[in-house]
């Protein structure tokens, strides 16, 4: 593939032909803010926060949709650019609730990040503000359209990755809004609640209902793991606070990228469910009684050993588990063949 060389903020950078100025800047290690841009999705060039200055070009082009050219000279931090970015932020903030105090995305919000970075205060411009009711009539996703900045990433995620296209822009001008067809709530649409829209929302417009008031973003520790449900093998981050899993968020999975399904993203509640078994149980006179590990293990050892001695090794059998790890299944196979001395081991591969 042909390469081209350009200069960004005085740094020479060589990138494949066809790269955008934004991509070239990233290669050069130059920071450019973005709202609507997402490397996995199509490029609408809508939010304009990524504008740069390129001599010879009329106005300030959006770097996310401007192709890098041989010999191009790009500036990303001139006074004109900073002024433009500040104005964009002021306009967005003019119709954005000043709600960081309790907002679930406080600490993980692009609008907040850039307002701080560029020193923009919330109340510079005064104007009409939306007062949409917050939608939380489904068990998975909270939608606060007052916080929506209309970047459209959720729309493109739903359409281009999830293939559902449940949501799109409705209305015009100040009344523009992201919504399912006929402006219904998610719960009345064909939404399958994969939550992939939440994963790409840069602000607090879409958030995970289960994580509401469970912890601030900076208090959360993320642990990358593999989903326990179907055989696709999606990766996600378990969100942990104070020793409890309080949510699941997208990571960059080898199989799934950031996409998850409703079970993977919202099906973690069983981990701390009060029904979890917390102690060994031994049935005495038809009723379960709590027992110590020592007592339970010794009883099982005695019984399985007794059956082997009395009826032969093949009177015992094992159902191993497609839910457990490789290591555990390996040990079960070893236990069956070495300790019980039988090949009567199988699992529900057939279900």
């Amino acid at each position, binding site marked *: 593939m042909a390469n081209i060389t350009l200069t960004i903020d005085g740094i020479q950078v060589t990138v494949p032909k066809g790269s955008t100025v934004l991509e070239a800047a990233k290669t050069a290690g130059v920071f450019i803010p973005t709202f609507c841009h997402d490397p996995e999705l199509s490029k609408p060039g809508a939010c304009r926060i990524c504008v740069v200055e390129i001599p010879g070009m009329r106005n300030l082009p959006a770097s996310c949709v401007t192709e890098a050219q041989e010999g191009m000279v790009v500036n990303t931090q001139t006074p004109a650019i900073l002024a433009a970015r500040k104005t964009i932020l002021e306009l967005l903030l003019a119709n954005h609730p000043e709600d960081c105090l309790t907002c679930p995305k406080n600490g993980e919000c692009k609008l907040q990040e850039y307002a701080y970075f560029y020193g923009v205060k919330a109340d510079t411009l005064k104007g009409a503000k939306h007062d949409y009711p917050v939608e939380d009539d489904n068990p998975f996703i909270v939608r606060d359209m007052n916080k929506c900045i209309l970047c459209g990433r959720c729309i493109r995620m739903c359409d281009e990755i999830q*293939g559902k296209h449940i949501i799109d822009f409705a209305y015009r001008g100040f009344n523009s809004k992201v919504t399912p067809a006929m402006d219904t709530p998610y719960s009345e649409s064909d939404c399958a609640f994969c939550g992939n829209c939440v994963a790409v929302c840069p602000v607090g417009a879409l958030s995970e209902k289960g994580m509401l008031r469970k912890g601030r973003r900076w208090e959360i520790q993320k642990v990358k793991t593999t989903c326990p449900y179907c055989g696709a093998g999606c990766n996600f981050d378990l969100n942990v606070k104070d020793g409890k899993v309080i949510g699941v968020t997208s990571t960059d999975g080898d199989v799934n990228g950031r996409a998850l399904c409703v079970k993977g993203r919202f099906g973690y509640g069983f981990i701390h469910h009060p029904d979890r078994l917390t102690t060994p149980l031994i049935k005495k006179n038809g009723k379960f009684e709590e027992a110590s590990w020592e007592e339970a293990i010794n009883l099982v050892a005695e019984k399985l050993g007794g059956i082997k001695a009395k009826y032969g090794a093949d009177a015992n059998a094992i159902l191993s588990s497609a839910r457990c790890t490789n290591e555990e299944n390996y040990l079960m196979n070893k236990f069956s063949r070495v300790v019980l001395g039988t090949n009567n081991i199988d699992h529900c591969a057939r279900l």
Partner: protein
Amino acid sequence: MTNGIKEIADADFILATGTNTTEGHPIIGLQVKKALRNGATLVVVDPRKTEMAEMAQYHLQIKSGTDIALLNGFAHVIIAEDLWNKQFVQERTEDFEALKEIVAKYTPGYVAEITGVPAETIREVARGYAKAINASILYTMGLTQHICGTHNVFAVANLTMLCGQIGKASSGVNPLRGQNNVQGACDMGALPAFFPAYQPVANEANRAKFAAAWGVPEMPAGPGLTVPQIINAAGEGKIKGLYIMGENPALSDADANHAVHSLENLEFLVVQDIFLTETALLADVVLPAASFAEKDGTFSNTERRVQLIRKAVEPVGNAKPDWEIICLLSTAMGYRMQYDSPKEIMIEITQVTPSYGGITYDRLEQGSLQWPCPTTDHPGTPFLHTGKFGRGLGKFNPVEYVEPDELPDEEYPLVLSTGRRLYHYHTGTMTQRTGALEIAYAEEHLEVNPVDAANLGINDGDFVKVSSRRGEVTVAARITEKVAPGLVFTSFHYPEVAINKLTNAALDPISKIPEYKVCAVKVEKLPATAAEKAS
């Protein structure tokens, strides 16, 4: 799978048979949708009008259990119209003539009669598959949970080899595995006939090798039993002791009443699980296990991709990871098992499992690996059977269509099929306890075609009694054209609708898979009072 999940997106022809991909494997479904966006042709073979079927250019709504006829029909058309890949068949396969002979009688007209799919559609799909640059076949339990499940898979393999649609990217046979680590459990020797990496137990050299590796004089040689055989043997009193880890056969096994009776017949049952499942309730001892969030380890996904799971929180209460419990028990029974961590177990696994030979936790920290990965410098294997098949030449195994074990009759006039819902998983042990999924999909129902509903006088939401020769359940009816007339459908996610009390435990003689997808049932409307009681 012979291919990777992401390769599906680049296929230009996808034949999805017996898979409700967007509900059962939603993230794999995304790759199918991506392929469609790229202009691929999607053919869905399913007795139900699923979301996948709605997306497809061709929905072949076959009669349950007639897959072989359909697949042979495709092969017939491809041979008759001279569309088969002669070079591939010549260089890479054997016994083509046998296939040609058997499929000769499966003319589109004959197949249309058996399957209910129009002859012209059969021709079009056959041509599309044969002419595609790369064609991927996806299937799940809709193909395998039949008494002829293995033959169904043979018929798929025959079609694939006939057209040379295997051994290259985006082109092959791709069974989508239903559980997070069913691949790994098989790889690790949780099977009666195999040691890890499918090394046959029947082979004396293998037994000697494992006896040496595990430091014992010998390995058991006798053929072990499969799940249905274990359950039957328990019922017959031949199996006395059963150790179940993380499974719930009381709900999941076909003919579940029989399974429960068999488990009750045991002298000793120990169940190790994270919840007190329907099966655990029958146990003499219950051992509390840690969930996936509470331990380290690896899962192997449907495309043979080995990935880490990481401990995020401490086990609840006194629960312990399964590997620790097995070690405790083994040691208590006189064989010392001691590992500091799953990482250490993996080191032992790699020494006796050639396909995992190069897999280490340190490598997995950097990213997942697809086996075969024999050495630490091997990059892993994205797709199988490039250049040559495991056995050398691919062998055509022509198969004949047989009817399902139990067909509808006067007493039980409808066909019951079972499957999954998007919001739930298996016996619902986990998904019924999430504080979210069970709210979104709160109760199960039985899908009934409007024609049958009218005949039975059932309205949407009415409670009905569904019964087979083996058992009965009460469930609300959902009148929908998703199912063809004569077919009813529900899931096995709900203990309240324990549908496997009804299913037929007749087994495929080769794979020992029960025929979950077809059994004969009758549906009766319940009087209002009985329905109230039931609800």
